[in-house]
């Protein structure tokens, strides 16, 4: 089974190819949008490449859930509600929801999408398989 370091190295390589960034920029804590400049179409590209590089299948919305803030009961006054946080915990066990819960502004949702989150996701997938 692949070690965490091996998975990270492959995730790093995937992001270097998908986003045209240097490998030293792809740190564990780097966020995809703010630090690595990912745009919406890049998320699809990243999913395609991860599937190919790791030989896994990633159903749509599993790694990067869509429309998290669309449900009215999940958002109150620009912040994600407890109900919303619970749903996010269930949908995204690979993301660091606890840190996000400290300041659950809707605009902070994209900061959940880190390199670390992808590594967690792939690790869970490979272990489950």
């Amino acid at each position, binding site marked *: 089974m692949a070690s965490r370091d091996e998975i990270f190295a492959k995730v790093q390589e995937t992001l270097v190819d998908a986003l045209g960034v240097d490998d030293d920029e792809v740190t564990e804590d780097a966020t995809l949008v703010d630090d690595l400049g990912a745009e919406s179409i890049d998320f*699809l*590209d990243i999913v*395609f490449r991860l599937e*190919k590089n790791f030989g896994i299948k990633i159903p*749509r919305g599993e790694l990067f859930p869509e429309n998290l803030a669309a449900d009215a009961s999940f958002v109150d006054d620009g912040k994600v509600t407890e109900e919303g946080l619970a749903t996010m915990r269930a949908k995204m066990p690979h993301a660091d929801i606890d840190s996000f819960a400290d300041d659950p502004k809707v605009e902070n949702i994209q900061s959940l999408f880190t390199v670390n989150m992808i590594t967690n996701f792939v690790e869970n997938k490979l272990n489950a398989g």
Partner: protein
Amino acid sequence: MRWFWIDRFVEFESGKYAKAVKNVSLAEEHLHDHFPGFAIMPGSLMIEGMAQTGGILLGEVNNFEHIVILAKVPIVTFHSWAVPGDSLIYTATLTDSRAEGGGVDVTAHVGDRLVAEAEIMFVHLDQKDSQFGAIDQKNFVFSMNLLGILDVGQAGDGT
């Protein structure tokens, strides 16, 4: 001017690869500005031709049921350039084809000389998609009009 950046297909193997030719001509208006006294085929239009070659290759896999949109060019390298009189051969190899879209690797050659190579990613769009109206027509890799390219050359030599 019509948005045709390939002249015809010379080889086509469904789901695998396609080879198209683009003859660069001094009759193309833009070559007189790109550049004055030094006419070369713009790299952006070479990418367009490579995307049309690859996009039709991908579209054909699904019998052109989806609209194929050029989504992203993750990598492109220009090694050389093409001038009027050159026949550019674009060879697209299908690397990925799935419900959401697909990808191709494409090279551009003049004779044996490698002029450019690129990786191109496409997404599928269907009329029922909510974002359909928001998409600029120019992003479409092909319309039914462009598909006429598949028929070019059949009449000329009688085959």
